[in-house]
């Protein structure tokens, strides 16, 4: 019956949160946490503990070659270090810690006091050793043999006060609730990086307030509430006048894109208050009336975070880590959550396909594409294994924003097709995507 009415209804809007709880709720420590040591393409931590060790909250459990650290987020005993499926859709070696309820390390035991203001090298050292950055903002792709190689001079820092996905509210809530700390963070960034442009993206309705509060330290960029205008790489392209392809990290083009939460964590680290062991995350979904934002210890399982708010993944069609447009569906609710900012719970049965429906050439994907790629041609070429034909169609301008698949009436996995194409065209032998050709 619903399908019948849908015939007469216009296209639904992109998902938004209807209502949200402004309070950030604290999640209790779980029975066990899993701290992933590997974020492929970005960073690889070497374990500094072994199975059987007792660790305390705030103790380093993994350290990278450049000195980036990852921490035990609860106190307890290391059970084992074993591969686990992570929210980054890979298996990664993971330190599993079982909670014994003992006290964590005090700030004095972790850090030796605040960093002297203006000492950029000491600040860099502290930021690394406090694990402040999300792995995908680190320059892991860009260094070989332990040295950061040929990074260009920094041009701009973009602090995102709104997340890319409209269903994730962490940055916005922190911006609204802790303006003094945000000001302090912007001041620190300005002190450390004297000759860069600093931008702060804010929700549209907060523009005048933000101009007043943060106008001295950063240029304010108001962003509307809907998704296409918030696509991060599009915003970066608009601000800087140059587009950074998906396969390259921001840092390799001299840009830092950091959200509010990581900036506040940087302030804490520089002041010697705490390392980054707790993360905020917004839980939303199509059947959740009011989105809730929680603060949880890194490495807590999806199940634990949902249960703390009285939710159960089994009641929904699937839990997605991240937002609805770019997130990843999880096959198990024991997946540890680390640097992700959102959980989106799906109630409807969307995008199921056994066999990919044929493309009817309606061209909606091409007309909606923010990069103006000829998606309707490219996705068919890849489907039929003609990868070489896509040369010259500039498929690697794709930001994988997901709008093409969102509008596709045939529900084709267009984002995945383009991703595959870019992967094959940049590295990899020619592998045929279609099952028929393998036989």
């Amino acid at each position: 019956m619903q399908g019948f009415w849908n015939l007469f209804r216009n296209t639904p809007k992109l998902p938004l949160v209807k209502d949200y709880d402004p309070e950030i709720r604290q999640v209790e420590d779980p029975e066990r946490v899993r701290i992933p040591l590997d974020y492929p393409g970005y960073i690889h931590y070497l374990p500094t503990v072994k199975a059987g060790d007792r660790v305390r909250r705030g103790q380093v459990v993994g350290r990278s070659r450049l000195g980036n650290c990852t921490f035990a987020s609860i106190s307890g005993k290391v059970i084992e270090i074993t591969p686990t499926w992570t929210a980054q859709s890979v298996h990664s070696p993971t330190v599993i810690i079982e909670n014994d309820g003992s006290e964590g390390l005090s700030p004095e035991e972790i850090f030796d006091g605040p960093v002297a203001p203006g000492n950029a090298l000491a600040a860099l050292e502290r930021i690394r050793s406090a694990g402040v950055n999300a792995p995908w903002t680190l320059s892991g792709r860009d260094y070989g043999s332990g040295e950061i190689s040929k990074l260009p001079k920094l041009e701009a820092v973009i602090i995102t006060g709104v997340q890319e996905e409209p269903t994730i509210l962490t940055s916005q809530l922190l911006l609204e609730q802790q303006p003094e700390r945000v000001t302090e963070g912007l001041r620190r960034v300005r002190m450390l990086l004297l000759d860069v442009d600093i931008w702060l993206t804010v929700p549209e309705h907060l523009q005048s307030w933000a101009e007043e509060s943060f106008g001295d330290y950063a240029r304010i960029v108001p962003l509307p509430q809907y998704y296409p205008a918030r696509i991060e790489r599009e915003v970066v392209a608009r601000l800087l006048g140059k587009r950074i392809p998906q396969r390259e990290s921001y840092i390799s083009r001299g840009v830092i894109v950091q959200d509010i939460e990581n900036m506040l964590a940087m302030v804490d680290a520089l002041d010697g208050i705490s390392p980054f062991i707790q993360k905020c995350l917004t839980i939303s979904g199509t059947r959740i009336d009011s989105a809730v934002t929680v603060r949880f210890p890194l490495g807590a399982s999806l199940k634990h975070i949902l249960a703390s708010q009285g939710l159960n993944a089994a009641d929904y069609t699937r839990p997605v880590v991240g937002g609805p447009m770019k997130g990843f569906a999880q096959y198990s609710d024991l997946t540890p959550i680390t640097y992700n900012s959102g959980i989106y719970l799906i109630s409807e049965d969307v995008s199921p396909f056994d066999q990919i429906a044929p493309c009817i050439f309606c061209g909606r994907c091409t007309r909606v594409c923010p990069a103006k790629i000829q998606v309707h041609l490219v996705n068919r070429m890849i489907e039929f294994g003609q990868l070489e034909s896509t040369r010259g169609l500039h498929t690697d301008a794709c930001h994988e924003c997901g709008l093409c698949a969102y509008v596709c009436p045939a529900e084709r996995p267009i984002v995945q097709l383009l991703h595959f194409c870019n992967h094959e065209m940049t590295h990899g032998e020619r592998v045929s995507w279609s099952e028929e050709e393998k036989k």
Partner: protein
Amino acid sequence: MYHQPAHTDTSMLEVAVGPHCRIGTGLAQVYQRWIIALLPAIFGSYYYFGTSSLRLFGLCVVFAVAIDYLAERLAPSRDLTSNWSSIMYGLMLGFMLPVNAPWWLILIGCFCMVIVGKKLFGGVGGFPVQPAILSVAVLQLSWPGRMDNTLALKDLDWQVTMVEPLRLLKTLGVSAESSFHWLDMLLGRQVAGAAEGMVFLVIIGGLFLLVLREIQWQPLAGFLTGLLTTASLLHLIFPETFATPLFYLLSGGTVFMGMFLITDHTTSPVNRVPLFLYGVLAGILLIFIRGFSKHTDGIAYAVLLVNICAPLLDMLTPKVKGGENV
């Protein structure tokens, strides 16, 4: 190095690829919307022609679905019968056939449409020209006597006074125009196929598709531009043989062509500027074919020709943003 972790949780959750919200609900919905858009004109056809119109559309749908199903069983492909496309194209074929078309003509038409027009090119989404139009063109060439709309109406027990604008224009010249009232033509009291002449009802259906964004406004706007401009110019140059632009717009299947045939997503270009140019070209071709050939209506050949031009027009693409980084 990596091996699957042991599952302490027995219930594995379903997964799917992103994005996790979508507008699309499958191809069937697209074609169901097109069918809904065709319905007003079919009701109009039933009002004027009675049960013989129902017989025509019924046979079209039955034959099209049967042939599509047989083809799917014999040569399985991803173009499933359950995507409703054969029903939609079957109805479109019915729009352009005369009301008294014999069953074998409909059967041959459906065969041409489903097998030659659709399946041979790889099913839905693969064909270069609109299958229903291809089939009508084949039938018009092969059985011109049977495809004669005027003769078809003579067999019927007429309930309304029909005007036959296009034929009289051919035989009597522009003086014939004065014998028609534009309201008659708008309401469908004219000689055309079974439903293509129901101008007002076709417009209602087309607006339904436009509102739901199933079709684009660019080809329609381009079509009107091209058609009215060409018709006005020719009317000024040859006032003896060419009627006024409004006459061309309302007579025969012109509006049906603008609303349903050239906006067909598979055979039209994709980018916005080519879509507009495509409409302009369709309008110009229609007037030229009507004015200078022996065909009275000529939408079939105008659509066929412009469909073939679509890939060429689609080479006018916007520049890829960030393409210089590659």
